[in-house]
């Protein structure tokens, strides 16, 4: 080379690195990877999407789904923050509940047949720590169990074995899951690594080149180095795919402004319509830890909680409208959840403290509209320790979605959920499997004497199959499992010796296939 030419010329700054690297034959990533067959589950309907909306902080269920059939007890327990009966939003064909006045969007969805309300969702031995409870919901663990994988992470591990080795491939070109935002959620954590991709702006990814020259040392530093390299690879592999999908959608129906949940769902709608094969989306909305000033004095229908619920309701409604506008509404089901509900009794700061079970919403054009469960049985005179006991284990919701929406077979379901959970009729009949809702669930449990001092008898009706009777205390803690076995259809009796229990309010819970019922009983 002419030396003078070399010295007088220069290489343009911005373009230099990529062309150097490609030109100089730096070892490319994954040059020798093998393609794995993408093992899809039998019956898997490939275009179904599930959207998870996490509400951070612990949403106050009693002011979200207002128990109209126990209004005076509700009012007494929350004299400074109760929602006025006349302001609760009524749902067609439903007498016993009303939605928070700010949730006009969800009211409309219910009346359109696209919303399902599940009452009192929780789990035995509820945990009142944000962080522990969030981990429990995200990992699908028992209360005292610590799992380092997320329930959707495990699902994705089952659906796409070996990820990330061999991905993307011809059957699955796109990210397995997308989380809108800059954080990595435990929900999507697989056995080896996060299964989802975090993005905050789908239209631009700063492109950078990375080169793997040196093998990672066998040390902690090597482990972390490998992790960073893997993230780098994924960003590059999937960044393009996302940008392309995002750019395909040029019009969307209107979304509310100044609503960060709406902003996130807007992106989700684009990516679904833009053609990504991604099945799982996660979005996040916080601020629900309303220890103080949940409502405004003088008008409890407004305040911090109202604003939050209004934003959730408006965002979901706009999202559903857009999905319909885009022609993809039948592909999407979503759910909201929060790590716990809040205390029955309000506190002195016009707020509520951490509680246990709470209702959640499942929405979508293919959702079976309705309400699962009854209002929690409120105490006559609530005290500071009273909590809403659970009627449905949160993992039942997960199992139902996996089985009846994402069409997972029973073996896989067991690998993901780790235990058997009652499935609920959340999605319309004909989606994956037929559900036979057992008839009118009135009076399946009779408890006597009530109040009791030593022994109490529980008479219960089973439709056959797996039947469980549990005893829980007023804080939602499991005291004893009285029955947990298969039964023939019929009426049965079991005695419970509760003499040793502290006096107070208890709950007897029956679970039989898709049916559950809770009765309260007082020990004196």
């Amino acid at each position: 080379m002419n030396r003078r030419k070399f010295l007088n010329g220069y290489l343009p700054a911005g373009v230099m690195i990529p062309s150097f690297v490609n030109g100089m034959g730096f070892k490319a990533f994954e040059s020798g990877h093998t393609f794995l067959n993408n093992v899809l589950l039998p019956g898997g309907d490939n275009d179904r999407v599930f959207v998870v909306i996490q509400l951070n902080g612990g949403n106050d269920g009693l002011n979200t789904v207002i128990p109209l059939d126990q209004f005076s007890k509700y009012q007494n327990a929350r004299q400074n923050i109760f929602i006025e009966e006349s302001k609760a939003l009524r749902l067609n064909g439903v007498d016993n509940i009303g939605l928070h006045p700010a949730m006009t969007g969800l009211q409309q969805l219910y009346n359109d047949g696209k919303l399902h309300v599940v009452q009192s969702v929780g789990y035995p031995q509820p945990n009142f720590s944000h962080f522990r409870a969030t981990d429990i919901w995200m990992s699908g663990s028992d209360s005292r169990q610590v799992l380092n994988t997320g329930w959707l992470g495990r699902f994705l591990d089952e659906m796409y074995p070996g990820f990330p080795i061999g991905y993307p491939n011809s059957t699955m070109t796109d990210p397995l899951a997308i989380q809108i935002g800059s954080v990595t959620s435990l929900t999507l954590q697989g056995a080896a690594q996060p299964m989802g991709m975090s993005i905050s702006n789908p239209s631009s990814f700063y492109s950078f080149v990375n080169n793997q020259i040196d093998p990672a040392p066998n040390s902690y530093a090597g482990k972390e180095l490998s992790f960073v390299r893997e993230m780098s690879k994924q960003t590059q592999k999937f960044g393009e795919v996302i940008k392309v999908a995002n750019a395909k959608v040029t019009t969307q129906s209107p979304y509310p402004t100044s609503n960060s949940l709406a902003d996130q769902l807007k992106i989700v709608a684009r990516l679904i319509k833009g053609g990504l094969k991604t099945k799982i989306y996660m979005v996040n909305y916080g601020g629900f830890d309303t220890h103080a000033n949940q409502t405004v004095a003088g008008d409890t229908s407004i305040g911090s909680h109202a604003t939050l619920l209004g934003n959730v309701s408006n965002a979901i409604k706009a999202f559903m409208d857009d999905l319909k506008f885009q022609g993809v509404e039948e592909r999407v089901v979503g759910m909201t959840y929060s790590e716990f509900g809040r205390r029955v009794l309000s506190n002195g700061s016009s707020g509520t403290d951490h509680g246990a079970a709470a209702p959640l919403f499942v929405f979508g054009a293919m959702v079976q509209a309705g309400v699962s469960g009854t209002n929690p049985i409120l105490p006559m005179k609530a005290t500071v320790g009273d909590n809403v006991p659970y009627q449905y284990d949160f993992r039942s919701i997960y199992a139902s979605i996996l089985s009846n929406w994402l069409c997972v077979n029973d073996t896989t379901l067991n690998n993901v959920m780790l235990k058997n959970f009652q499935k609920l009729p959340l999605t319309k009949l004909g989606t994956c499997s037929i559900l036979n809702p057992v008839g009118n669930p009135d009076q399946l449990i009779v408890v006597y004497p009530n109040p009791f001092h030593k022994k109490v008898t529980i008479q219960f009706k089973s439709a056959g199959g797996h039947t469980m009777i549990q005893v829980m205390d007023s804080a939602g803690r499991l005291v004893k499992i009285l029955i947990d076995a298969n039964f023939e259809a019929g009426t049965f009796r079991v005695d419970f010796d509760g003499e040793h229990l502290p006096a107070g309010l208890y709950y007897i819970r029956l679970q039989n296939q898709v049916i559950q019922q809770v009765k309260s009983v007082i020990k004196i």
Partner: protein
Amino acid sequence: MSTERKFQTPPSLAAYAGPWDKDAVKHLLRRTMFGAKKDDILYFTGLGINGSINQLLDTSLPLPEPPVKEYAVGNAMVPDTIIGPGETWVNDTNNDGTIASYRRGSFKKWWVGNLINQDRTIRENMCIFWHNHFSTETNDVGNAQYVYKHHNLIRSNALGNIKSLVRAMSIDPAMLVYLNGQNNNKSAPDENYSREIQELFVIGKGTGADFTEPDVKEAAKLLTGWRINSTKMESYFDPNRHDTTNKQFSSFYGNKLIAGKTGATAGDLELNDFINMLFANDEAALFLCRKLYIWFIYYKITPEVEAGIIAPLAKLLRNNNYEVKPVIKALLSSDHFFDMMNRGCQIKSPVNMMIGLLREFEVKFPTPDMYTTNYGLWNQMLSYFTNLQQNLGDPPDVSGWKAYYQEPGFYEYWINTDTLPKRIQYLDSLVTNGYTVSGFKVVVDGLAYVKKMAAPRDPNKLIDELADHVLGIPISAQHKAQLKRDILLSGQSDDLYWATAWDLYISTPSNAANTKYVTTAITNLIKYMVDLPEYQLC
């Protein structure tokens, strides 16, 4: 990895007896300061290990001057005209919403300035440790004077007595606002602080943390009555709001009964009993030492680490009545800290990475008298931190940043498909074009950096020195050779090409084409280095 990763020596607090070489010094500085500046490496090498650690733990230096008014009052309803430009606002009670917002901004920018200009101690690092530990959020607290006071409490006690710090924190105005302590009264106790002081600040959530829900309720009753005097900007106790009943704690606390008291001193006396009870529990020291371990060493606490490091460290903490200095000293002086397995294994936090870059490359900022420009420049760093998910002053919630507690990934939580490209983008930006406020440009001056090297005309030594200075773990000779050829030699194989270009730059910088060549090559080399995954580690 199929082979077990093993420490060089079984974990213990035995003092480091290895060489006090550049690598050891860099490792210590990278874990205690932000990036290892070349001058600092030289300075600490000269002090030897004990001298170095004593220097790092030196608290005799004065605290920085408080933040100043660098903002215009805009359309504030109640402007703070009494405070002149460049004067501090921290003692002025103005709490107008707009002014408070400007002041919170001023506080955060000032904090960045302290990080960039840090002295040769661990204090700035410990301020962030304690901020993460006692996470409050400036946006929730609102009142900027309380925000500063809270920060100053941490800063003044960063290397002091943990028990005293927790005691003071329990009635700190910002904390009383953030965790609702100021609303906690006998007719409706609020459990927010009583839960978090146990779960997050003293006992933790480990397998040995068996405090109960009733403990949370009893503690809430004990903490009733505290209020804030907004004129004096300090907390006070109102006995009329205090629950005077006895507080019975669980078997975890030895069934301790804290007698309820009445009168003006009840709050203080019961709080003292409560703090003593918490810290009398063995789990407190274990929890705090595990946090320090994760902060300074690594997040994997194996059974041998628990037995060899955490347990004796916790004992040391208790025996020193919860003075934190002896514990940090023991940890940082240990052979285990310097074990090769523990080097280069942390993923840098956003703050560590960005401030580290500024310090490593000695990026210039205006002189202190130009405070408005400085605050403006520091503000940009805050945006970087926030976009990378470490909003200094406003962690996501009271449990701090996930990187320091979330299983299984811990620091890996800083890095995902969104934050990683942003990290690279921000680093590249500072290395290439920089950013400008009021005409002052902040950018890495690669030429100045390279000029100070031992042998910049030798492309091999140049790359060696750069890689050695900034990378968390080394890259191979083969990798460096490829870099040399592609970036410094423009594809050629003769080192002379670079030497000649460099010599010409030194002798005749007015030769525009050559200077441009040299500048671009150095910029690209630095950019390449900081884009490497190895740069993300420390």
